[in-house]
C-alpha cells in the first residue's frame, strides 16, 4: 500500500511537472524576448538564450514611470473595489438560487442565465451607463459595466452551494435560531471558501486585464488603467495594419514600438497578478481544512 502510494505520487508529479513546463516555457520566452537586445532580435529572432541582453525596453517604458505608476494605482483600486463588491453580489445572488425554498426558483435561475445568452450590444449599454448613470469618465465606469457580476460565476457558485453544502447543515442552523442571512454568513460562507477564492481570483484577473471599459468610457487620461495604457499601443498597431488608413495617409502615429517593448509591456502587465496569486491560494487550502471538519 505504502509503496503503491509512493509510485502514484511520483507518477502524478512527473505528469504535472511536464505540464508545468509547457505552461512556463512560453512565459520564459516572453521574458527573454523582452530583455533581448533589439538589433539581436531582428537578426536572430526569438531565443530562450539571447546572446546579448539589454534592458532598453524597460528603460523605455520607465521613462513614463509616473504615468505607469498612476495607471497601476487606478488598476489596483478598480480591482480591489470591483472584486470585493462583485464577490458579495455574486454570493448573495447565488445562495438563494441554490435553495429549494426559493419561490419561483426556476424563473430566477433562468432570469440570471438569460443574461449570458442575450445582450443588447454595446451601443445601448453605453447609453444606459452614460446617459442614465452618467458614468462617463468616472472611475465607476471601470468597475461597474459588464464586470461587476456575471451570470457565469453566479451559476457556478449556485451549483457549488447546492452540491457541497448539505441541506441538513443549513436546516440545523435554522433550528438553532439563526436567520437566513445569519446562516449564510456564519455557516455557508466559511464552508465555501474554495469557490469564493476561485471566483474572486477570476474577478481579480478580469478586472486586472480589462481594457475594454477604459477604451469605451474613458477619455480622460487621469483614469487610464494599466492595461488600457499598454493595450492602446498594441491596438493602434493592429488598427493601422487593417484599416482603410493603411491605404492613404498612413503616417498617423509615431511608428510602432519595437517588438521588445511590446514583450516588456506584457511582462509588466502579468507580474503583479502573479504576486497576488498566493494570497488566493491560501484560501484554497483553508477551504480544505474547514471542509474536513464540517458536517
Amino acid at each position: 500500500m505504502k509503496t503503491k502510494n509512493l509510485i502514484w505520487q511520483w507518477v502524478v508529479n512527473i505528469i504535472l511537472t511536464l505540464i508545468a513546463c509547457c505552461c512556463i516555457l512560453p512565459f520564459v520566452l516572453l521574458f527573454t524576448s523582452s530583455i533581448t537586445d533589439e538589433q539581436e532580435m531582428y537578426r536572430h529572432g526569438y531565443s530562450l538564450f539571447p546572446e546579448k541582453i539589454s534592458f532598453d525596453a524597460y528603460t523605455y517604458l520607465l521613462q513614463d514611470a509616473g504615468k505607469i505608476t498612476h495607471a497601476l494605482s487606478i488598476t489596483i483600486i478598480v480591482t480591489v473595489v470591483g472584486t470585493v463588491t462583485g464577490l458579495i453580489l455574486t454570493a448573495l445572488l447565488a445562495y438563494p438560487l441554490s435553495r429549494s425554498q426559493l419561490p419561483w426558483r426556476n424563473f430566477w435561475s433562468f432570469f440570471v442565465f438569460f443574461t449570458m445568452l442575450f445582450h443588447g450590444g454595446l451601443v445601448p449599454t453605453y447609453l444606459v451607463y452614460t446617459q442614465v448613470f452618467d458614468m462617463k469618465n468616472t472611475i465607476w465606469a471601470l468597475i461597474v459595466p459588464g464586470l461587476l457580476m456575471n451570470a457565469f460565476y453566479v451559476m457556478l457558485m449556485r451549483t457549488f452551494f447546492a452540491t457541497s453544502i448539505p441541506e441538513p447543515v443549513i436546516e440545523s442552523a435554522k433550528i438553532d435560531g439563526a436567520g437566513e442571512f445569519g446562516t449564510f454568513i456564519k455557516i455557508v460562507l466559511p464552508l465555501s471558501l474554495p469557490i469564493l477564492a476561485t471566483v474572486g481570483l477570476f474577478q481579480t484577473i478580469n478586472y486586472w486585464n480589462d481594457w475594454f471599459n477604459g477604451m469605451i468610457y474613458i477619455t480622460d487620461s487621469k483614469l487610464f488603467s494599466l492595461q488600457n495604457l499598454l493595450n492602446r499601443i498594441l491596438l493602434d498597431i493592429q488598427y493601422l495594419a487593417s484599416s482603410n488608413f493603411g491605404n492613404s495617409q498612413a503616417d498617423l502615429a509615431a511608428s510602432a514600438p519595437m517588438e521588445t517593448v511590446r514583450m516588456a509591456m506584457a511582462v509588466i502587465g502579468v507580474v503583479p497578478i502573479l504576486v497576488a496569486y498566493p494570497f488566493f491560494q491560501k484560501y484554497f487550502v483553508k477551504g480544505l481544512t474547514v471542509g474536513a471538519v464540517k458536517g
Partner: protein
Amino acid sequence: MLLLMMLPGIIYLVINNYLPMFGVVIAFKDFNYTKGIFGSDWIGFKNFEYLFKTSDAFVITRNTILYNCVFIILNLIIAVGLAILLNEVKKRFLSRFYQSVILLPYLISMVIVGYLVFAVFSMDNGLLNKTILPMLGISEIPWYSEAKYWPYILTIVHIWKSAGYLCVIYLAAIIGIDKEYYEAATIDGAGKWMQIKRITLPLLMPVVTVMTLMQIGRIFYSDFGLFYQVPLNSGALQSTTNVIDTYVYRALMNLGDIGMSSAAGLYQSFVGFLLVFISNYVVKKINRDNALF
C-alpha cells in the same frame, strides 16, 4: 429574506443586461444618428443579410461549431483530469507551484500569445523552422500559409490557455467534496482509481453539467483573440481559421455599422439560446437537479 438577498444582484443584472436589451431593435433598423435609436427607419432583416449572403457562410458556421465542440470536449477531459491530478499531490508546496504555473497562460493577452506563437512558427526565425525541423531533417514548412495545420495549432493554443482556468474551477469543486467519503472508501479497500470513478467523478457531475451547458450557450461565439490574433490575420489560413466573430469583425472593420453588428450578436445569441434550451431539456430528463433552470 432570500429574495431580499438577491435584490442587489438582480438590480445589477437589470441595469447591466436587461435594460440595454431594448437595443436589439437596432438590429432591425437603419440607424441614423439624427433620428436616434427609436426614430430610425425599420428595415426588417436587411442587417442580417451579410451573414448569409456570402460563399463563406457555411465555412464560418462549420468552423465555429466544430472548434467549439472540440474545445468543450477536450477542455472537459483535460481540465478535470488535471484537477484530479492536482488534488492527488500531497506536498502542499508542489501543489501550489503547479497551480500557479498552469494558470500562467490565462494571464497573457491574446495579442502577446499571437507573438509567442509566431516565435515558434515564423518562417524567417521561428523556433520550429530554424531549430527543431532541421534537427529532424525535415525541410521548412510555411506554417502561416498552410491552412491544414491550424486546426491543431489553434486547439493546442486554446487548451494551453484555458485548461488551467477551468481546472481551478473543478479543483475548487473537488476540494469541496467531503473527505469522509474517501476515508470510508479507503477503509473499504477501494483503490485510487476506484475512488476517482465512484466518488470524485459523480460528485463533480453537477459542476461539469453546468459548465458544459453554459459553454453550449456560447457555441456560436468564439474567442476573437484566438482566431484573429493568433493566426496573425493571415488570409491564407481563413479556410480553417475564419469563424463568425472574425468574419463580422473583418466585414465591419471599415464600415462601422451599428445595425449590422447588433444583427450578428442577435443571431449568435439566438442560436445559442435554442441549443441551450434543447440540451437543458435533455439534462432535465436525466437528472432534474443538474439542470440549469
